[in-house]
């Protein structure tokens, strides 16, 4: 295996607990990952030794807090290959990041009748902000269809792009594991005079991210899916776009001057960061990046492909036609997220029985209801892998599925 998972597991205190005799088998990292001790320690240490508000105090711990906060931004910028650190905006999560783009860029640049092109595999985070603009501004939404093989059907892309101002695409589907050709879509968008936003929530935790190579204009990712804390994410945008956009949220920190009759916004990136930011969370994100980079993002991805290959093979061997796994069939073509149907048993019931064996999987629509309708299902069960998962976890899932069948039939 590309990673020594036995060593990795040791770093995650939550995985040391047991359900009866069995260790906790956590297969829901696509929803939110677990945190290594180093991330927990970094945040605890920050609160115990350094906490003060950032960009305000001149005393020593305030300066140190500011330095730690901005150092986290540097790490995040490096992690995604951002050309400039001031292009890295801290947000609450990707959802807030896309709302930022929709509201700041969208309201300044979209008029009634303008089109935004999305895909049928988007998470609600990259659907609803645009649906809100549809209601409020009268913009039109179009969708790149998904084929039965789980891949986007780009055969009609040029026609779909006609008159489009922005393309929003996930870099890795949270349901199907599909890895769309973001570069190709971004290039086509630019050729048609449109911008391209990529939702990297599921991508950056697992793949080496280079926003320049991806060729996009906006890229969002979130800490809690990549070993970091909840409450902090990043929206990266090209500098000249961010410069041209009006602020999103108003308040402290995001201003240079405030008068009774107006305000002057702060410079980048703080122009988009109203109010006291999540400082400890930024420190935690920095520690998570350190942890992932110590493992090596290429190894992280290699491990995921190995484990996904193992899962696809062994699950098919044991369960055959009783198990339907959605999305691309090749592990190298997909992320380590397996949405499945099993013997017609409802995902809620599967998840409930699996829980008795300490196996945590997600059940539901995964915040992708249009995709669920496209698949013709109300919900799926979903197992997703990360750096601490190993073949024994896949075996536990497989065994628990058999038990589920025994229980209901």
């Amino acid at each position, binding site marked *: 295996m590309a990673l020594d998972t036995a060593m990795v597991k040791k770093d995650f205190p939550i995985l040391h607990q047991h359900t009866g005799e069995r260790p906790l088998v956590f297969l829901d990292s696509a929803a939110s990952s677990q945190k290594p001790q180093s991330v927990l320690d970094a945040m605890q240490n920050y609160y115990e030794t350094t906490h003060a508000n950032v960009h305000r105090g001149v005393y020593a711990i305030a300066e140190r807090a500011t330095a730690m906060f901005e150092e986290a931004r540097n790490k995040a910028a490096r992690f995604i290959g951002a050309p400039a650190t001031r292009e890295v905006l801290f947000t609450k999560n990707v959802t807030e990041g896309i709302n930022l783009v929709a509201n700041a860029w969208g309201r300044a640049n979209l008029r009634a009748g303008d089109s935004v092109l999305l895909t049928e595999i988007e998470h609600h985070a990259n659907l609803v902000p645009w649906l809100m603009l549809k209601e409020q501004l009268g913009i039109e939404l179009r969708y790149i269809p998904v084929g039965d093989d789980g891949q986007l059907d780009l055969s009609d892309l040029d026609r779909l792009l006609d008159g489009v101002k922005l393309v929003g695409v996930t870099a890795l589907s949270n349901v199907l594991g599909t890895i769309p050709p973001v570069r190709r879509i971004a290039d086509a968008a630019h050729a048609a005079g449109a911008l391209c936003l990529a939702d990297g929530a599921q991508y950056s935790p697992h793949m080496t991210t280079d926003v320049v190579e991806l060729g996009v204009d906006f890229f969002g990712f979130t800490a809690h899916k990549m070993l970091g804390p909840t409450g902090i994410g990043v929206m990266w945008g090209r500098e000249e776009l961010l410069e041209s956009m009006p602020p999103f949220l108003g308040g402290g920190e995001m201003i240079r001057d405030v008068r009774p009759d107006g305000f002057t916004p702060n410079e980048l990136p703080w122009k988009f960061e109203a109010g006291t930011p999540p400082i400890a969370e930024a420190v935690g994100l920095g520690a998570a990046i350190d942890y992932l980079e110590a493992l090596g993002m290429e190894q992280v991805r290699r491990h995921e492909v190995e484990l996904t290959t193992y899962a696809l093979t062994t699950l098919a061997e044991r369960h055959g036609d009783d198990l339907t796994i959605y999305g691309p069939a090749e592990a190298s073509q997909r992320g380590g997220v397996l949405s499945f149907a099993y013997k017609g048993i*409802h*995902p*809620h*019931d599967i998840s*409930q*029985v699996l829980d*008795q064996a300490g196996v945590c999987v997600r*059940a*539901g*629509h995964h915040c992708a*209801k249009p995709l*669920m309708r496209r698949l013709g299902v*109300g*919900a799926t069960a979903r197992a997703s892998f990360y750096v601490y998962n190993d073949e024994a976890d896949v075996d536990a899932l497989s065994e628990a599925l058999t038990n589920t069948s025994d*229980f*209901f039939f």
Partner: protein
Amino acid sequence: MALEDLYREIILDHYRSPRNRGELQSPPARRVEGYNPLCGDEVVVFLDVDGDKVTDLKIAGQGCSISQSSASMMSAAVKGKTLAEARALIRAFKGMMSIHEHRLDGDPENGEAGEGEIAATEPEVKLGDLEALQGVVKFPVRIKCATLSWNTLQQGLDEAATT
């Protein structure tokens, strides 16, 4: 917590062989949809009300064993009942399902779902087979599954009352 507390045999029976499954022509039947936005479960209740009576009732839609069996048991319990009896059943059932919330409110005396409490909520009502769903309260995320069809029925009765 044992799985058998949740999935009692009678529940699995209603799940495997749902009663009153299907559709009624609408109109004249009243058609009401209910959704659980958390998991995507959908239930459609078709309701024939004649005067003071629920003369027929059918259930469509899709969902987990708890939501489907609860809907099935509800259909069997409500069909042929008067509107007042149906409403009393809804109150009693939802009373049974809210026991967990009482416990969360910090009232340990109300912690166990005993028959006495159900009787206290709605003394005239016999829940019968429906009491098998009591175990659901020990699995808080599943309570919404169990109450989905009941809330939908209630919505249908409310609409029937205003039109």
